[in-house]
């Protein structure tokens, strides 16, 4: 069922016709619609949206809502150059969930998903190279999680 707030949106309408139970929720943010997608269908949804004209993914990022549950939100910022439109997808995940990588849809998702994995610890299935990108390879913990300290911790300059 397509939520009422995005009933006017063309991309959301086309998507709900193609994949009827993919959109679980929707909102209208200050800059446009946000579609909440079922985590199992993210690759199919992205494929359909790419067909519908969203030829690039501007970025992929995460939000940690700890201690609330489900804890993580993975955000996909889609952009259509031809139609000059933007669309935001959001997937809610618990700490143990994995999500399918969308690298097969947009090659540019590679580094963004690695960043989300590195900084939040969200695991992407079928990613060609899911390694840390910002932090050193042997780093412990995921810095952008809300329960990760901003200062101090294992490496403190005060010990030097």
């Amino acid at each position, binding site marked *: 069922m397509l939520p009422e707030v995005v009933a006017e949106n063309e991309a959301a309408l086309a998507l709900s016709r193609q994949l009827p139970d993919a959109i679980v929720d929707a909102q209208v943010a200050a800059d446009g619609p946000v579609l909440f997608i079922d985590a199992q269908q993210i690759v199919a949804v992205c494929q359909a949206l790419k067909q519908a004209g969203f030829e690039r993914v501007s970025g992929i*990022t995460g939000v*940690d809502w700890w201690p609330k549950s489900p804890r993580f939100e993975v955000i996909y910022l889609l952009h259509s*150059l031809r139609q000059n439109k933007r669309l935001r997808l959001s997937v809610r995940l618990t700490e143990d969930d994995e999500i399918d990588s969308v690298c097969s849809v947009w*090659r*540019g998702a590679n580094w963004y998903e690695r960043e989300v994995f590195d900084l939040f610890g969200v695991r992407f299935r079928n990613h060609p190279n899911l390694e840390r990108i910002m932090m050193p390879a042997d780093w412990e913990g995921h810095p952008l999680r*809300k329960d990760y300290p901003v200062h101090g911790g294992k490496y403190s300059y005060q010990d030097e």
Partner: protein
Amino acid sequence: MIKEDYAHVASLDAQHELAIEDVSGIELADQHRSSRKMTLNMGPQHPSTHGVLRVVLELDGETILKARPEIGYLHTGIEKECEVKKYQQVVPLTDRVDYLSNLNNNLCYSLAVERLLSLEIPPMAQWMRVMLCELTRVSSHLIWLGTHALDIGAMSVYFYCFREREEIMKIFEMFSGQRMMTSYIRPGGLALEPPRGWHKFVSNVQERIARGIDEYENLLASNPIWVNRTKGVGMLPVDVMIELGVTGPMLRAAGVKVDARKDDPHSSYDKFQFDIPTRQANDVYARFEVRMEEMRQSMRIVKQALDGMPSGRWQADAPHILLPDREQMKTQMESLIYHFKIVTEGYRVPAGSVYQVVESPRGELGYYVVSDGTPNPHRVFMRTPSFGNLQSLGAMLEGVLIADSIAIMGSMDFVLGDVDR
């Protein structure tokens, strides 16, 4: 020992698995003379990478077979830091993301917060923002031109570019007291009232640079060494570039007319007359041409801003967000209370999220700000243009000569602070 270290490097990337052979090459040369591969580590301290970028190259003679950029050497956790700052305290951090286009970062963050707050910005502040952002674009492009030409061997262009850039730095210093980390654009308007005599000062600089651009172009555009080093180098199919996340002048040099200033107008950009330059050639020379033309267009916008600058307030009418005038603080109780509350508690931003895009000198700059209704942002994600552009480096370097890699990296105009954040 060396061999083991390289083996570790190769295991980091399954997709670009590098064939590791003895770096000395003595034994292997006898066995298969025709395909003697070598792995070369370029960076992180390499002058042509303009920062701490490491590129692992697999070479066959002078030809690059595979290239894998390794980033993260300048990761400073700015996004994490934003979460413990108040909304107004984030502005100085945005300066330090892309340290060559600070005002564009200030603007993007401010617009995002203003959108969450539904703040209306007075026209004078909007025009001033446009003028300063265009000056930033020119100063950033001047640095790009100077260093890019220096990499390829043209020494003198560097001095011309830095001479003109210094004039723009003086403008920023005049406005904000700072040359680089200006923090001049803030949620709600500008940080300070524009200084007395700014109009004449900026007019002089505008005239000087508008004349200067032709001068730099003459130094390079028909220089045979420059043309031979840049024409037909660094090409990649347009659809691959779009998929990999390339934006800005690189994409415009490939014939895609995309610019956030036209597509998603903010800060009254729609009131200015300017063109979006594009080229079809999609090589290093085309990127040079596009950026040179962009500087001309920016100067056109600055000229229009100088001629038609509206009068009025330089900050929005929002006493609960903007610090009050010092004079009012001493005479009005309300101003003193607001000052106390803003400094101690900050201001609350209604819960919600927004993705705001502006056109930085390098491409699409976006700030994704999530608010949970407290005075601290819940999450600030910076979609930086250099990160997306750099992702195409591996694909662009495949099969080119190692000398051309310098020209290609120069034409990408990345800032490592912008990549790693």
